């Protein structure tokens, strides 16, 4: 139906977005790729020599690499587990009839809108501080010794903080998905005498599977990139150095651009693996 004129107009309208994103993607990524094959130390004049794949080898063989991978996997995995499981339960709960549903929903969703630096600092100081934090009061109240959260159980503490921020996201998406479930279907199951647990396993969970997959993929991509909450709490110490934070330190703190860039390329590859799965699901959705 569209004429030739409207087609070229359409391309013209699309062009700025495509060109901008293409530049945004290609220029810095190409630079990172080039740097990753260099010995490049800005404090000693920048580019020194070409080193082939040396940086890639050094990045993965450095003593900081495997602990960083481990920390990343534990944090991402832990947060995913907590947010998805609690998110499902919360979404089901919020879908039930109750008084003041709107207010509860608002309270549950609120943490997602708190800026990451505020989240990190409020938790670090006002809750997890071993002297003046609220959790320390709670521990003392029950006769226990306050926990020095961010140095005794730093990874667990970070998982807690990050989960608090992302639980609303999982809940909101799963709630939206539950609400699209046909209530007739549940009713029919109820009439057939299906119990709560059986309804959950055979109707609700299968219905949610796509939404759960999407939550996992999107959160993974964002969680791999977590930065500010670590920056304001532990600065990567006490074993909380994730891959992202390690790369950041290599580039900006120790000013080893070649090594950091090789790490950056690893991070890009890693993120793209998850992105591919996500895009397949989203792409299928486009066809409908």
């Amino acid at each position, binding site marked *: 139906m569209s004429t030739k004129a409207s087609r070229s107009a359409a391309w013209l309208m699309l062009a700025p977005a495509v060109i901008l994103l293409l530049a945004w993607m290609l220029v810095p990524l190409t630079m*990172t790729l080039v740097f990753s094959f260099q010995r490049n130390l800005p404090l000693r004049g920048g580019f020194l020599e070409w080193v082939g794949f040396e940086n890639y080898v050094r990045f993965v063989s450095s003593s900081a690499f495997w602990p960083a991978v481990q920390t990343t996997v534990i944090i991402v995995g832990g947060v995913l587990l907590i947010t998805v499981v609690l998110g499902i339960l919360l979404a089901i709960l919020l879908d*039930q009839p*109750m008084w003041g549903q709107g207010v509860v929903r608002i309270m549950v969703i609120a943490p997602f809108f708190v*800026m990451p630096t505020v989240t990190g600092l409020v938790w*670090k*100081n006002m809750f997890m501080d071993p002297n003046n934090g609220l959790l320390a009061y709670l521990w003392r109240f029950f006769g226990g010794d306050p926990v020095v959260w961010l140095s005794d159980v730093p990874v667990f503490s970070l998982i807690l903080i990050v989960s608090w921020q992302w639980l609303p996201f999982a809940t909101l998406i799963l709630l*939206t998905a539950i609400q699209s479930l046909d209530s007739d279907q549940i009713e029919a199951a109820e009439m057939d005498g299906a119990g709560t647990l059986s309804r959950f396993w055979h109707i609700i969970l299968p219905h949610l599977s796509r*939404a759960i997959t999407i939550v996992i993929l999107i959160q993974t991509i964002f969680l791999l990139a977590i930065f500010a909450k670590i920056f304001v709490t532990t600065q990567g110490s006490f074993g909380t150095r994730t891959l992202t934070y390690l790369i950041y330190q290599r580039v900006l703190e120790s000013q080893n651009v070649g090594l950091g860039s090789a790490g*950056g*390329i690893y991070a890009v590859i890693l993120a793209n693996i998850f992105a591919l799965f996500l895009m397949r699901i989203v792409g299928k959705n486009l066809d409908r």
Partner: protein
Amino acid sequence: MARTVTAQRKAINTGVAWVIGLLIFFPILWTFLTSFKTEAQAIADPPVWFFFDWTLENYRVVQERSNYTRFLWNSIYIAGGSTILGMIVAIPAAWSMAFVPSNQTKNILLWMLSTKMLPAVGVLYPIYLIFIQLGLLDSRFGLTIVIMLINLPIMVWMLYTYFKEIPTEILEAARMDGAGLREEILFVLTPMAIPGIASTILLNVILAWNEAFWTLNLTAARAAPLTAFIASYSSPEGLFYAKLSAASTMAIAPILILGWFSQKQLVRGLTFGAVK
């Protein structure tokens, strides 16, 4: 037949949900309350809850000592500017893909999505270098452009899913009535597109306001927005919980309110239309 629920069951739901809701909301509530206490009350043992002499002192001190309004203005500039610039680029793009789709549309959309997945840390140094070269380090304008670019894929996607929902039969009807392209866009499509555009703006302002990788790494004294301002509280000097709370409350309040209005859009925007 509506599902019948006993009053008892509803009461239990209500009780459980409120307890959990308050628990999740508690850190925000606590921050809010603490912002009105004195520093001594903020760390009192046992903690004081509602019955203390509410004071606005912290808000005054935060403003005086650190010139809070400057950071606030930077946040508004960056969030607002990146949204406006982004919409100028995103609306035509989404529009053309929704109304004049080609066989490349799907690929372009997915490719745009893939740029959003690019880990920021992977391009930190190049952007840093480019910013130094162009003299954009610690400038609001430079940051505005970067924030616009990182959110552009979400804007295009979100607008696209909204525009896609506008029934094309309406266009055909308008054409039958002799409307030209200009009238079509102005009087038929625009009014129907406004809700989607408004939602996209809302979500984008929220995302830009809270962005904390580039804002922390590309700004120093001049262009720092609220995210960076709050981060400066990570090296405390003496008693500061009440002041941290006041600064935090001011930084999150506007976006919390916007956020509550945008629950539905958030789902659509952040799942790229895969969950609606």
